[in-house]
């Protein structure tokens, strides 16, 4: 016997499909709509011209890379705020060493070593001693800010043009943008297609289940922190070569990075951090910021809008998941 859907059920199925469609592609569509609106309002500004796209992508790279690192940490079930302090510190260290040694490689290696060792320290405290990762990372953030301010009072300029050219080499798109896309592609395959990515997601979803399944959850978490350290080191190198004049870079990145991750988590399965979502979220925020720069609003409007984006995106996710109070354990 064939079962025919009643009209009411058909409507329900349609609604469900529509919901799913919005959930999966709402954010990219929103991004597209934003770009189109900008294009319509500013007819004269050539947004789609190659130079402008290059510019927007270039400005998004450091947000996107840091957000990817944060996504790894969040996928393993922890949270992190230390990047806001570490980012400023790392850019300063990079600039100082670039001026002293005139070598990109050496300064990049030093920055990576610092970032990885700090993240390893956090990871060890979190995994071995079961500390709350948020509070640990807040402490680390303030400490990094203190160290940065103690050694660095005024703007540092990177003098060496060959180091500065790192973010200006172009093959169609700038080199670092290609690098970003490749890293995202690799991350996508690692997270979605390999055993490591599968165990990372299990650890984040349900730590006890992961342990029962024979996954070494501590090792997975530590590896996520190390990857995040490498990514934030790369992001700070890109940022310092792109800007050239460094002064407290981290404070501009605290909110966009967080917002990119949570905006991305509203795609596909609400509340679950995913790689593509993070990329789209970062691009969304990059375009939004560029848009606000173009209509020359003050910088404080930018922070208002980003704050609202963060709260709204997380709110949507949390609301879909049946609101339940999330507590912080000390």
């Amino acid at each position, binding site marked *: 016997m064939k079962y025919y859907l009643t009209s009411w059920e058909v409507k329900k199925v349609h609604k469900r499909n529509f919901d799913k469609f919005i959930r999966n592609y709402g954010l990219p569509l929103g991004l597209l709509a934003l770009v189109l609106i900008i294009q319509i309002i500013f007819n004269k500004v050539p947004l789609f011209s190659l130079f402008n796209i290059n510019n927007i992508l270039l400005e998004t790279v450091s947000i996107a890379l840091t957000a990817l690192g944060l996504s790894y940490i969040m996928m393993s079930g922890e949270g992190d705020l230390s990047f806001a302090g570490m980012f400023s510190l790392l850019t300063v260290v990079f600039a100082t060493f670039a001026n002293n040694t005139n070598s990109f490689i050496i300064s990049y290696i030093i920055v990576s070593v610092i970032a990885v060792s700090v993240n390893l320290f956090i990871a060890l405290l979190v995994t071995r001693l079961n500390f709350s990762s948020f509070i640990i990372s807040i*402490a680390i953030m303030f400490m990094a800010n203190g*160290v940065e301010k*103690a050694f660095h009072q005024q703007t540092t300029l990177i003098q060496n043009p060959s180091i500065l050219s790192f973010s200006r080499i172009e093959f169609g798109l700038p080199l670092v943008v290609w690098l970003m896309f490749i890293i995202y592609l690799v991350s996508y395959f690692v997270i979605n297609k390999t055993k490591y990515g599968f165990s990372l997601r299990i650890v984040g979803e349900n730590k006890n289940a992961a342990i029962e399944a024979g996954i070494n959850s501590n090792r997975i978490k530590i590896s996520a922190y190390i990857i995040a350290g490498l990514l934030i080191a790369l992001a700070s190198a890109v940022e310092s070569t792109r800007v050239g004049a460094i002064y407290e870079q981290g404070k501009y990145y605290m909110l966009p990075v967080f917002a990119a991750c949570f905006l991305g988590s509203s795609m596909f399965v609400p509340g679950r951090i995913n790689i593509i979502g993070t990329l789209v979220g970062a691009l969304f925020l990059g375009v939004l910021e560029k848009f606000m720069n173009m209509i020359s609003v003050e910088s404080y409007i930018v922070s208002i809008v980003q704050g609202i984006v963060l709260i709204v995106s*997380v709110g949507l996710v949390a609301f879909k998941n*049946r609101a339940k109070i999330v507590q912080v354990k000390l």
Partner: protein
Amino acid sequence: MSSISIPSLREKRMIIINPQMRIFIGLLFVVLLFFAFATPNFGFIRLQNLNNILTDSVIPAIFAFGMGIIIAGGGFDLSLGHIASMAALIVAYLMSGGIRFDLFSAILVGLLIAAGVGSINGLLVSRMGISSFIVTLGMQFLIIGVRQLITGGQSVYISNGLFKKLVFSEFGISNLVFVLVVVGLSCYFIMEKSVFGRKIQFLGENIEASRFMGFDIKNITMVTFILGALLAAIGGTLFAARAGAVQINSVDSKLLDAITIAVFSAVFFGRFSTSGIIVASILISMISTGMSMMEIKTEWIEFMKGFILLSSIFLTKYMNFNKPNGSISSILIGKGEAINEQQESI
């Protein structure tokens, strides 16, 4: 089997001050001695300086009361410093320029607006179910934007004589200390002696159990955020009275103080302890005053505060006071065993 022993009179007298507090006062004396010898001419232990330290510790303590209440209810607030800045700006702004509110209505408006911001935080946390870290992070940037929008980034000077009187020292001790006594007593009675305060603490301890007990968990969570914001606004206002002029971001950095003291006290003395917060803030202000007297840069003091925060979290692992045989005194004396079992979360 444990036998119940009747404490002798001497032991009874020792019980009045709990073992953590005894250890902590010892720690205070160690720090005092260290700085006494480290500063030139024993300048640290001059009476004038000790008085200054007491006065300095008032405003951080009030911030920490706010943060402590929020932490006791199981939340966390990163926007506290910014709420305080905003309240200070509003109070100073209303009293100067063309508006000229009188002192009490200006303070009232400042507190009301701060409470409004706190209630938005609380609503988002309790009704929408967003993590309090994220709500307050977003709120922090919202406040940065809004206050810049209103004031245009200019600092406001305070000319009200009555307002400045808040920080005078008439009897040798600053009036701020009396404010601290009033605020501390009210916090003590609300949080430690009233049913409502016990509900807040129980909610922070176990949200599921308190839901089954029939507590109104959503509203209680919201009220903790409102109380926190109110206390932050009081702290910000006092700061404005002390400084004489309010810059747009002058109180933001007090967030670190608030977090450090509140977490330190929560770790050392249990969920919420009024006396613990006051003593911890005295310790922090002793360290920062001592370090600045040793001519160490202020940035390193900030680093030091972060370090204290980190190490106080570290201490919890090995000094678990809530369990009977794991108290700090028994570990130091060697009666009990250090508890190494895995805790659920810290």
